């Protein structure tokens, strides 16, 4: 069953205000999939441009309303994508972010991207819908697994329903403190090796991965990443999307995934 979640406040109807052909959120199969959250005034529908801090506060306020309308909450987030206009504000994002996610934060990937109307930040999230998952006896409702990786505001993996959501991992997560190798190929190997460990700890494995997102510092490096990538995944490999993004200094590749959890 697929439930369209109506705008919880009149201002959050982006279809009406801006002609965006999207529903605020859709609940299906035990999860709530939210449309990209933007700093829009919940009552008036006005765009609330500001500093990244100001925009992020508005976004989280809207997210709370939306998740409540879908029978979920910030504590049930399983995966968050934070798209910021410039990674120079990464620490600013974190300062706000930690005020809203609890001690067991969702899996998270942050990258540089342009959002509509020149907004500084956009949040793309998936949450568990407790009601829908409650009848589903086996797996934990939502459980943050593995100690946080390099990104202290993310769990390396979060289990929700039948799935395990893994944060965007980089070579810096794999070699904590040590020097990071230079080539995209070497970094891909380190990241996937680390991902394998994270999945194992979560009771899953690379064989059970269903979807991967790869962020590359340059799309010209895709063949170098692919060559190593192919060695780690079974045949047939998972579904995947590859994009180019500005990554932290020295980081050539960042990889996140969604996998099936342990077989019961």
């Amino acid at each position: 069953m697929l439930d369209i979640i109506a705008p919880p406040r009149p201002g959050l109807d982006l279809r009406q205000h801006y002609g965006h052909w999207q529903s605020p959120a859709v609940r299906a199969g035990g999860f709530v999939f939210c449309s990209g959250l933007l700093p829009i005034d919940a009552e008036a529908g006005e765009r609330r441009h500001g500093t990244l801090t100001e925009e992020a506060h508005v976004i989280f306020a809207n997210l709370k309303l939306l998740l409540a309308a879908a029978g979920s909450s910030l504590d049930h987030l399983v995966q968050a994508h934070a798209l910021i206009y410039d990674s120079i504000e990464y620490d600013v994002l974190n300062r706000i972010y930690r005020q809203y996610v609890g001690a067991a934060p969702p899996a998270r990937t942050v990258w540089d991207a342009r959002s509509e109307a020149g907004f500084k930040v956009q949040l793309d999230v998936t949450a568990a819908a407790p009601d829908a998952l409650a009848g589903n006896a086996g797996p934990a409702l939502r459980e943050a697994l593995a100690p946080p990786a390099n990104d202290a505001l993310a769990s390396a993996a979060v289990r929700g329903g039948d799935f395990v959501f893994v944060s965007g991992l980089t070579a810096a997560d794999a070699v904590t403190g040590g020097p990071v190798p230079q080539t995209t190929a070497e970094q891909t190997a380190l990241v996937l090796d680390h991902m394998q460990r994270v999945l194992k700890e979560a009771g899953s494995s690379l064989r059970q991965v269903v979807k991967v997102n790869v962020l590359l510092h340059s799309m010209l490096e895709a063949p170098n990443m692919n060559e190593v990538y192919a060695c780690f995944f079974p045949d047939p490999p998972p579904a995947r999307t590859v994009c180019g993004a500005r990554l932290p200094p020295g980081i050539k590749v960042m990889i996140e995934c969604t996998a099936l959890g342990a077989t019961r």
Partner: protein
Amino acid sequence: MNASRSVVEPRNPNLNVSRSANLPHVPGIRSGNYIFLSGMGPIDPDTGERRHGPIGEQIRLTLSNMQHMLESAGSSMDRVVRVHVVLADIADIAEMDRVYRDFFPVSPPARTVWSMQLRFGNGCEIECVALAGR
């Protein structure tokens, strides 16, 4: 129903880009109740080649390929729950929306749109999560 993981293949082999370009991913995975499709660009279904016309045409082509992919997997556009639209240029958002709405005439899915560097000079890359079944 959990722990199943099967590949989604398009009926039209021209749209199996990962196979024709020998890339280490599949067009989509069906897993439990969900179908996860890989990011797709504007591929001509008759030739399997990229087609880089105006952005509106690229969006239409990509979404009609997505429709084909979902229908090949026994799902459909009205089972889509969340779409990610990645554009090469965020300024194309209005033109994208104009075409996009034809594919989801009622109750459109959740969606996030942004722009970043794409492969092969594509103007768009679109991926989705859908419910399996009809």
